[in-house]
């Protein structure tokens, strides 16, 4: 009896199970038929929202409550021949079957995108062209709890697919009631080819991941963030604010370690940072960034986003206690237009870098960006406070650029060109102006820290060529450069050194510049087939000794080495060859316009015969000597130099031939004459 009962119950269960399975299969089949039928209408509905072609492969239902969408893609062109802006091989939606069965309400609980792949430029275009629709779409979504996630997304960085760098990203967002929270990561990875088992294999090299997490509240007109944290091993940033209607309000702070994992540089830099901002250092330790050396605090942003225009009404922050501000607008159209003005006073931050006399920096940029090409005009102004010992001797530096183009299409190589630029520099004693025209350059980012830069330009009616390398891991960036000048007009360089206005001829030069440690510029220059016209020193000689030929000194070649550093400027191994005159020696101009110089002048006999003042001296010369050498030393203040006639055979011969009281008398007369010239 009991056996029969058991058998009957088992059969009932067996049939019930069969019925349930059959029901589920039937339901699945019906649901999938419904999905197949809904595919076209869904596609049609999405098409009405977006300008781009949104397509997908299959939609099918999996019990109990999953919908799978395969091969979802968004193409910028309806024809679909181009690579899609975004493609997702697999999308999973989880919904509540009970809600659907009993309330006829299709409630999506979870959406997950698996391995979506996007092209940055195309996806950006998609976002830009459909921004309003996307916002509207999100706004119209039913208010319900939902979980949204993206796994292993890949964002390619160029259009041709030749760039091995790409971004990897994950994202998880949860909405519960009015609360929204999420987390994710972003890293810049690289495809590299590795030789494995005698075969080249493509492998992914992962970059340093940037983690982020946020928590906020959905409001009627937008969203407010209680916290938005951005974390990387060299960065910790925290923001809070809101995005309501069109108004963006954002506050926050950030700690950054800019020293690119160089242990040798961490010691002194970190010490300087901690001495400068002990409170900030304690704070940075509290958030796990003890090595931070760049503190961005008091970030306060008020902006207005009326798509496509983002107007930054106010963005202020401090970098290591140095206040900075940014205002302006960005139009996210095609092309993207920007008009921004950045200002800062970076005295504290640069103290560590021995440029403590920085007062204010002003940078204005206005232009546009389209198809990897930046086009803009820019103005950069630096103001310096009064010079302190060891600081660079600048009071003002201004740079104006017109017609700048930066082509980023061949990353990591950039073409940086401009039509015209003018640099103005004011030190405690002089002003300098440099103009460049038709500047062409190629900038190559070797890695995150170093770049090399080759450039050429028209300059002073000649040509300038150069190559520079920049270490961006330091503050300020370290620059070393080699420059060559060819066929420049010497007198056109009077903006750099006023004395060049008296020098004529074709100038050739090669020089080397290094910004730190110890900024210097050194090199050599040669001037060919030129002349000196009313050159101060020769003019003085011409007036004083009645040698009118020295008003204009023709020469076939004048050469000199030069160096400029914080101690001053020096000319060494000066050599000027003229028909009646030869000059050689060195001339140095230090701080406070103090001169240190030794020069040798060789006058031809024919030149000396011009002046009656030299007639008695010529009698002392041997008849077979055809020139007279004066070696002398100059020192003291540039505009009132001390003069010493150095010992020579000629001087000894004069001393032997005149009594002491005549020597004193001559000396007195010369002094009086020099004083009278100086007074003039």
């Amino acid at each position, binding site marked *: 009896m009991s056996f029969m009962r058991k058998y009957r119950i088992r059969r009932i269960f067996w049939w019930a199970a069969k019925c349930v399975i059959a029901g589920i299969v039937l339901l699945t089949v019906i649901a999938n038929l419904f999905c197949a039928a809904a595919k076209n209408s869904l596609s049609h509905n999405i098409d009405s929202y977006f300008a781009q072609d949104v397509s997908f492969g299959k939609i099918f239902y999996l019990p109990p409550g999953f919908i799978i969408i395969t091969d979802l893609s968004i193409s910028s062109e309806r024809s679909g021949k181009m690579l899609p802006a975004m493609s997702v091989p697999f999308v999973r939606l989880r919904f509540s079957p009970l809600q659907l069965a009993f309330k006829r309400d299709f409630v999506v609980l979870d959406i997950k995108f698996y391995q979506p792949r996007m092209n940055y430029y195309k996806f950006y275009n998609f976002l830009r062209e459909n921004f309003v629709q996307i916002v509207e779409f999100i706004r119209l979504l039913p208010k319900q709890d939902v979980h949204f996630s993206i796994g292993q997304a890949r964002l390619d960085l160029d259009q041709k697919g030749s760039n091995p760098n790409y971004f990897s990203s994950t994202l998880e967002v949860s909405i519960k009631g009015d609360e929204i929270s999420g987390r994710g990561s972003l890293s810049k990875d690289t495809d590299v080819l590795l030789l494995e088992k005698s075969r080249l294999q493509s492998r992914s090299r992962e970059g340093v991941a940037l983690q982020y997490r946020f928590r906020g509240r959905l409001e009627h007109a937008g969203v407010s963030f209680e916290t938005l944290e951005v974390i990387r091993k060299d960065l910790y940033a925290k923001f809070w604010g809101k995005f309501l209607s069109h108004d963006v309000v954002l506050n926050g702070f950030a700690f950054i370690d800019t020293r690119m994992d160089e242990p040798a540089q961490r010691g002194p830099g970190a010490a300087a940072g901690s001495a400068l901002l002990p409170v900030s250092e304690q704070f940075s330790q509290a958030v796990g960034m003890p090595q931070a050396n760049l503190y961005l605090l008091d970030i306060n942003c008020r902006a207005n986003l009326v798509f496509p225009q983002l107007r930054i009404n106010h963005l202020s922050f401090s970098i290591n206690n140095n206040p900075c501000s940014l205002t302006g607008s960005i139009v996210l159209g095609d092309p993207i237009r920007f008009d921004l003005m950045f200002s800062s006073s970076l005295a504290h931050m640069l103290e560590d870098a021995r440029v403590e006399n920085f007062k204010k920096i002003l940078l204005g940029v206005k232009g546009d960006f389209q198809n990897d090409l930046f086009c803009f005009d820019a103005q950069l102004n630096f103001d310096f406070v009064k010079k302190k*010992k060891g600081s660079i001797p600048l009071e003002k530096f201004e740079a104006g650029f017109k017609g700048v183009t930066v082509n980023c299409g061949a990353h990591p190589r950039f073409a940086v060109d401009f039509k015209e630029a003018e640099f103005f520099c004011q030190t405690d004693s002089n002003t300098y102006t440099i103009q460049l025209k038709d500047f062409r350059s190629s900038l190559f980012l070797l890695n995150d820290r170093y770049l090399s830069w080759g450039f050429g330009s028209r300059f002073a009616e000649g040509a300038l060529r150069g190559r520079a390398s920049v270490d961006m891991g330091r503050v300020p960036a370290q620059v070393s450069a080699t420059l060559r000048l060819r066929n420049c007009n010497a007198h056109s360089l009077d903006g750099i050194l006023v004395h060049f206005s008296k020098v004529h001829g074709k100038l050739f030069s090669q020089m080397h510049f290094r910004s730190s440690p110890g900024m210097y510029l050194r090199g050599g220059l040669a001037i060919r087939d030129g002349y000196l016209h009313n050159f101060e020193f020769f003019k003085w000689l011409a007036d004083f000794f009645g040698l009118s030929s020295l008003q204009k000194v023709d020469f076939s070649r004048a050469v000199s080495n030069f160096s400029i550093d914080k101690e001053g400027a020096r000319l060494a191994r000066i050599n000027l060859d003229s028909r009646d005159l030869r000059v050689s020696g060195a001339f140095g101009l*230090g*701080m*406070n316009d*103090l001169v*240190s110089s030794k020069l040798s002048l060789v006058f031809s006999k024919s030149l000396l015969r011009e002046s009656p003042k030299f007639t008695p001296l010529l009698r002392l010369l041997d008849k077979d000597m055809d020139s007279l050498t004066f070696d002398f*030393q100059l*020192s*003291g*203040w540039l505009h*009132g*130099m*001390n*003069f*010493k*006639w150095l010992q020579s055979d000629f*001087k000894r011969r004069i*001393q032997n031939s005149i009594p002491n009281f005549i*020597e*004193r008398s*001559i*000396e007195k007369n*010369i*002094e009086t004459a*020099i*004083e009278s010239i*100086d007074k003039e």
Partner: protein
Amino acid sequence: MKRTAVAVFLLLQAVWFPYVYAQESGYRYNQAIEAINAHDENTAFMHFRSLLADHPDSRYAEPALFAIAEYYFSIADYQDSWQAFNRFVTDYPDSRGKLFALAYLLNIAGKQNKEALVKGLEKEIVLFRQMTFLFRNSKEFKYISALRKKYKAVYYIDKIEFYVNNELYAQISY
């Protein structure tokens, strides 16, 4: 008659007063010099002070002020010495003692590690006189102060040495 007598009296006062005034400042100066000759610099200092206070426009005020500044320096009162030499440089720009007063100021600024002041004073001293050396390697300038100290500045083409009683007390190279 009375009026005439009063007028004559006032006229005599007017003529007599500057003479008396000069006599008075000269007298005090001589007293100070006598004190110096007796190696009593403290008393000399007091006489110079009262001379400067009572007769600031006297021709003896210049050496008196230099002597006061020297005295302060000799007792290591550099603050008062600085003020006195500074006043001397300002009030008597054409004095032969100005160069040596600047050297004292340079010395004091050096003692107080005021680098900017040192640089400024060095520049002022270098600019003070332009030199030409045709046949000689150096030139000397001398000054004897009221405290009977012998000062000497020796100019070379690229340096200046300052001596007081033949002892080097300041030097500038450039």
